[in-house]
């Protein structure tokens, strides 16, 4: 019988992995980031399905079961925040690129206009 937290983390993990793949396909995520996020979420899903594997670590560190819930929740939340931040940075990068592109195109247009003006003034002098 599955506990509620297991279902929730499997659900969130699966959705995030799908989101990552979709973002990668749209070119909004690099391959390295995609692989990293898939790995992280697979680990989270794995631990939720087999929570007993964490007992090894609990034994090692001496953390009791009571803290587990808070820990898992905290880790989930911080991963979510990191993901949010990554997405934000990606958007800023995209806007920066758009700005650089627009500047490049406008600069080129200005150059052309200057050339035209020069040509006209040359004609006028003649």
């Amino acid at each position, binding site marked *: 019988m599955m506990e509620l937290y297991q279902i929730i983390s499997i659900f969130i993990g699966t959705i995030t992995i799908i989101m990552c793949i979709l973002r990668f*396909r749209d070119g909004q995520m690099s391959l390295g980031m995609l692989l990293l996020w898939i790995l992280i979420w697979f680990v989270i899903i794995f631990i939720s399905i087999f929570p007993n594997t964490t007992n090894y670590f609990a034994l090692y560190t001496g953390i009791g079961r009571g803290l587990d819930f808070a820990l898992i929740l905290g880790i989930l939340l911080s991963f979510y925040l990191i993901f949010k931040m990554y997405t934000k940075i990606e958007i800023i990068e995209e806007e*920066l690129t758009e700005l650089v592109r627009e500047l490049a195109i406008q600069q080129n247009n200005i150059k052309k206009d200057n050339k035209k003006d020069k040509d006209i003034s040359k004609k006028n002098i003649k």
Partner: protein
Amino acid sequence: MKISVVVPAYNEEKTIVKVLNDLIKREFEFVVVDDGSKDATNKIVNNIIKKYNKGYIYKHLLNRGLGAALKTGIEASLMKDADIIVTFDADRQHDPNDILKVSKPIINREADVTIGIRDFNEMPSSKKFGNRIMNLITLIFYGINVNDSQSGLRAFNRKAAETIIINARDYGVSSEIIGEIKRHHLKLTEIPIKTIYTDYSMTKGTNTGEGLKILVKLIINILK
């Protein structure tokens, strides 16, 4: 039909003169996108444009990557009323005679997009490995199996150039373009091209580099 050759260039002062002279000799219109080069690329290209009164340069103030440079070049070419847009690497790895070869199916209206495929048998084994991996990744994520997903020599007709949306800024752009071709049901033809492997071009092109290099770049990307 007006062909516009888009040449994305990042620190290519050693090779750009030869590449542009080849294009001018064959009377191609060209658009160089200087992707924030820190060397003399910009100056050299400006001098050539002034000397022959041919071609255009677009300068990215910051280095934004291959994908961003290609997008700028394609947009600029569309503004200059190009009928066919060809992308061409600045590292001299392509044979300029192949430009007409990849444009032909588009002139004959047999294709919307063509991709020049390099002969993997002639490719140094270090490069072959990386390219095979990228072909596999293109197949897995975009569901399309092509012979050379990372080739820098491609040709688009106006319709294709207008419909393809490029988001990737780095080397992932090559796979994304192929995904876009599939998404918009554009007709793709693959054409064998020559590739010139010089010591210089061997050091260029991150994802066409050896598998190890890809791995290192992936790790760096994660840490960035």
